């Protein structure tokens, strides 16, 4: 595919010279600190506790002197405790999707809504969407930010939005075919499920008009991208966001598909070691930490996303000057330490893909028996293999066990299950179940 003639939604803001960008970031950070110190008692208390005077911030690097904000802080101040404006200035309330634990409320002012639609428009345009496109949103519309966020961006750039929401895959395929959808917005696992369903229904790529997949809200791998791109004959780009800082639009891939461009004029990004909390150099994987620079409703300072990624500094041929982040490797909560070895679900996923014949749905279950960690990987396989071919099934199982042991450095048990043998919630696969924590 040669589709790199990527267009840019806000060339002025997405292609700032580094010095200009850093000036803008400093101005916005300083104003944000003044506002949170004045209007959010939580931050005033936090800053006072550590003796941080917002007036003393002089450089972007001083950010490291500020305390982190965590999901627990949001939860303790739920619903409106961290809002920096009165509720009457809020025009929209959303909540985090609650992948882990309770969801927490976030609020948007009119300006926040405008910024948000601008940033999701950037992501859509980076992924190849234009005003000529018919954009099918297959995210659930509700408190979750995914659907509304990208919906607004698509409308903003003038595309035709088809808000299908969370209909089942057969209906998604039927609408996609009948409405001549050209861009699909959903999670990667859902996109793959839709692709498989289309094949089952006998609807080949030729019968569809689909060109672009804007996929996000969960970690996925390069092999999964290839599988989606091949099955649907589309270009699939990754995008990233979290409701705690805004929602989708925080970062998105361009057609180069070599990392997600960060909206650095609206957020400050850091990557830290999740254990020592010290910043790590560019290119090193760690936990992403985000500070909002323009949010009015609920600004957040050094929010620990628990997402594992690395910041990429190399320039991108697309012309955007923003730094990029590597695709999310997993979550710090998902990072398993099994017998002292760090295991990322994404690495496991890559191994599973490499082994022929395995569908990408899997789940890792960890137990501790008599002081020893026991890891079981559930892998979904096709119905025919599951029911009919006992011998091939055994071979496959053994191959996966061997490969995982070789690649991950820990021995795991593998169980093959039939299609849909692993439960899904809201289209989001739960990758890791660690029962050790329950003891």
């Amino acid at each position: 595919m040669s589709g790199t003639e990527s267009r840019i939604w806000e060339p002025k803001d997405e292609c700032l010279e580094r010095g200009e960008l850093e000036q803008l970031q400093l101005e916005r950070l300083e104003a944000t600190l003044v506002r949170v110190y004045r209007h959010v008692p939580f931050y005033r208390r936090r800053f006072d506790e550590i003796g941080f005077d917002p007036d003393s911030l002089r450089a972007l690097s001083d950010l490291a002197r500020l305390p982190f904000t965590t999901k627990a802080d949001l939860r303790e101040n739920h619903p409106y405790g961290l809002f920096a404006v009165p509720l009457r200035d809020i025009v929209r309330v959303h909540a985090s999707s609650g992948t882990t634990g309770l969801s927490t409320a976030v609020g948007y002012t009119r300006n926040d809504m405008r910024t948000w639609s601008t940033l999701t428009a950037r992501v859509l345009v980076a992924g190849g969407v234009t005003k000529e496109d018919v954009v099918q949103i297959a995210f659930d519309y509700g408190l979750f930010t995914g659907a509304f966020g990208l919906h607004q961006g698509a409308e903003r750039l003038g595309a035709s939005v088809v808000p299908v929401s969370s209909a089942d895959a057969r209906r998604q395929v039927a609408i996609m075919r009948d409405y001549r959808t050209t861009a699909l917005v959903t999670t990667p696992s859902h996109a793959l499920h839709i692709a498989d369903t289309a094949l089952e229904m006998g609807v080949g790529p030729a019968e569809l008009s689909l060109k672009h997949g804007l996929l996000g809200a969960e970690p996925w791998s390069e092999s999964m991208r290839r599988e989606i791109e091949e099955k649907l004959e589309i270009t699939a780009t990754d995008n990233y966001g979290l409701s705690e800082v805004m929602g989708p639009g925080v970062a998105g891939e361009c057609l180069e598909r070599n990392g997600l461009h960060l909206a650095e004029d609206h957020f400050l990004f850091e990557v830290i070691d999740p254990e020592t909390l010290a910043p790590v150099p560019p290119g090193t994987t760690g936990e992403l930490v985000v500070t909002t620079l323009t949010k009015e409703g609920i600004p957040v300072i050094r929010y620990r996303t628990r997402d594992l990624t690395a910041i990429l500094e190399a320039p991108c041929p697309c012309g955007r000057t923003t730094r990029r982040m590597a695709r999310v490797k997993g979550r710090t909560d998902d990072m398993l330490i099994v017998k002292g070895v760090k295991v990322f679900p994404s690495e496991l996923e890559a191994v599973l893909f490499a082994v022929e014949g395995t569908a990408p749905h899997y789940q890792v279950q960890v137990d501790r028996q008599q002081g020893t960690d026991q890891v079981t990987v559930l892998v979904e396989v096709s119905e025919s293999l599951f029911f009919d071919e006992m011998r091939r099934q055994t071979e496959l199982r053994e191959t996966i066990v061997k490969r995982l042991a070789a690649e991950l450095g820990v021995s795991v048990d593998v169980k093959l299950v039939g299609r849909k043998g692993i439960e899904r919630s809201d289209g989001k696969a739960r990758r890791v179940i660690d029962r050790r924590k329950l003891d």
Partner: protein
Amino acid sequence: MLRLRNVDAGYGKLTVLRRVSLHVSAGEIVTIVGANGAGKTTLLETVAGLVRPRGGEIAFDGASIGRLAIERIVARGCSLVPEGRQVFATMPVRENLLLGAHVQFARGRKDEVAQDLERVLDLFPILRSRQGQLAGTLSGGEQQMLAIARALMARPKLMMLDEPSMGLAPLVVRDIFDILTRVRKDGTTVLLVEQNARSALRIADRGYVLETGRIVLQGSAEELLANRDVQRAYLGSDRDAENGAWP
């Protein structure tokens, strides 16, 4: 074009500006809005060299100007139209304008000054018809035009204006702001300090809100007009009906 980073400034023991960072890019109209005593005038005076910054950096066209003498700053292309016009009341309009060109005269560019005078008189026909009249006999609006015209005679790259609408009738204010958009169109960048936030934000590209010496908000003029804090504090309204125009 102009870049301030963490500028502190004040008078004697009084600190007025705290850690002010802002920038103005070539071709922009940028406005600083804020209440009386927020530090707006001090900010312009610090850039113009009338007040020395105590800390931070001020760069104009990439070079530091924080320690330069006033006339050197003007010579680099940064002019201030001060609050209250401050025209030379007992001198004719024409002489006032020529005084604005002292930087050009100092460089021996007499011919260019003559051309500039023509250009400025074209921009302000009212001043052409009153060339010989003493500046003190002009109306408030005409004196403001004279002050702007005088600043233009120095061929500034950046023109800073301190409350140009002060004490003027609404219709005259509109004329003054129309002139500023024309000045920008002719290639001069504008940094405008105003209490009349609504008028200023209508012609500006971007703005900063200064409160007790600190920047508390910044953004596009459109964003600031839509911000409820700005509406409450500076636009004199908090009616939902006012927000109906949001696109």
